[in-house]
């Protein structure tokens, strides 16, 4: 079983549309995992059915029992997250600021504070309309443990792949370089970087590749909207060469991408689409390099 992770640094470069297209091309030999748990979109294209859901608990939240609390302020004094508010002398927990460190409960002289496990989201196992196993999740609003939920989605996807003897786990990652991205990269066999020839596309590609490098994972790159700016595209191609990143495809700027999405389809399902061949070539190259 091999794990392919698609990331981009910058958001909106076409990561999810391309991941879903790769999933379609991979057929039934793949387990698909949407690890962009903050703003998951792949279900829109893959339209999962027969979903089984589970709550995800991670971290804790401090709760003050006002019947016991003497309003001494010890919790307020130790909290480094400004999560204890004082309203007319009454100490209350600001749930969005509390990071669940538990320090307040440890110093409370009358044991008025308990930590409760925090429900930070839900994860789902389903089948896509292409009959592939699909694992996705939704992080609760403002929740803090996106990295752990990403790890959970990936682990479930891997377990299914092993049990069902599937060759690939295909992971749609999140934008950025922070904890959810770090979490999605761990254990990957190949990384697909999706970028665009813009100043920000290149800037973010370089930063996210620096992160990929720390994991020593082989990488390939798809340049989306490649004909938007030829100078920038060439700059990206040079960067790929210098860094030994496999250049997987140049996909032209084409509004049929958006049109396909508007119909909740992947671009490779559009008849006579030139892009279909380009993404198919990329998929073959990924297979060769993984």
């Amino acid at each position: 079983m091999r794990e392919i992770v698609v990331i981009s640094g910058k958001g909106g470069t076409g990561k999810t549309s391309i991941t879903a297209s790769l999933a379609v091309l991979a057929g039934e030999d793949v387990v698909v995992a949407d690890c962009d748990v903050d703003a998951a979109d792949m279900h829109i294209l893959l339209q999962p059915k027969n979903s089984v859901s589970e709550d995800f608990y991670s971290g804790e939240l401090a709760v003050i029992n006002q019947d016991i609390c003497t309003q001494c302020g010890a919790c307020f004094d130790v909290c480094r997250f400004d999560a204890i508010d004082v309203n007319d002398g009454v100490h209350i927990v600001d749930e969005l600021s509390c990071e669940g460190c538990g320090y307040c409960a440890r110093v409370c002289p009358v044991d008025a504070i308990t930590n409760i496990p925090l429900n930070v989201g839900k994860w789902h196992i389903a089948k896509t309309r292409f009959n592939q196993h699909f694992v996705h999740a939704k992080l609760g609003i403002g929740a803090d443990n996106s990295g752990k939920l990403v790890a959970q989605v990936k682990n479930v996807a891997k377990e299914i792949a092993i049990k069902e003897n599937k060759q690939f786990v295909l992971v749609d990652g999140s934008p950025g370089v922070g904890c959810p991205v770090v979490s999605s990269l761990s254990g990957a066999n190949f990384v697909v970087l999706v970028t665009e020839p813009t100043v920000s596309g290149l800037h973010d590609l370089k930063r996210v590749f620096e992160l990929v490098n720390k994991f020593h994972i082989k990488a390939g790159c798809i340049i989306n909207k490649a004909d938007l700016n030829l100078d920038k595209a060439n700059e990206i191609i040079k960067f790929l060469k210098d860094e030994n990143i496999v250049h997987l495809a140049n996909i032209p700027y084409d509004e049929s991408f958006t049109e396909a999405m508007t119909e909740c389809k992947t671009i490779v399902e559009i008849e006579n689409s030139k892009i279909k061949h380009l993404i198919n070539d990329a998929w073959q190259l990924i297979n060769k390099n993984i």
Partner: protein
Amino acid sequence: MKIAIASGKGGTGKTTLSTNLASFLAESNNVVLTDLDVEEPNSGLFLKSELLHQEDKHKMIPVWDSTACTLCGNCQQVCNYHAVLRILDDIMVFPELCHSCYACSELCPTNSLPMQAKKMGELRHFKTPKFDFIESRLIIGEEQAVPLIKQTLDYIDTNFTDDYIKIFDSPPGTSCPVIEATKDADLVILITEPTPFGFNDLKLAIDTMYELKKSFAVVINRYGIGNKDVDNYCDKKNIPIIARIPNDRKIAELYSNGELLYDKIVEVKQQLESVSNYINTLK
């Protein structure tokens, strides 16, 4: 006044709106633009500016001093993040897991885990011809954006008075970095595109704003593609749509070269005027 520019989905035009709006408003106001997308800060790519000041930003982590340590293991017990472990005769600290709560350090009976500063990123203060621009960037490999966002907001509070229009280019998503970047804003502008992805993520962002009890408005970018779901939804929920930036390959090309739009494309300037009018009604 504090205005945060946010979106659920990435790549919908947060940075485009932030940089163009800051430049436009700076023609008649004191403006400071802050890039809080510390994982992938991009605003600076679109601005000609001169560096005024730079400082390292740190997070505090415990460092083991074995001299007086009795290996009692209290530190391991009090750490809810498994960032401190006792392994045989060693205390090991995992800085990337640490949330800087100080519990292990301050509850250590022998003061064997003093807190020390560890660099997590850099803040830079630039001057563009018309306004101030602040950017923070996280060191690659550092996972937690929130502490750096928090310290950057402190810098703005300390260095800029309330008569400034403070614009914050926020990170994408709906989780902790976005909450931190938007929670003190007087107005959050959610920018989206009229596609199924844009619409889905806009709804998540709107739910987040309701949860935070924020005043917010919507800007639709690449208007003309996709469908009318965003318009219809906002109508139904009485959410103001304060600008519609047209879908135009010319805009994408200017953007790709790191150029501002409002002085080159008249429709963009008109849309910024509309945003500016809306902001003035809130003052």
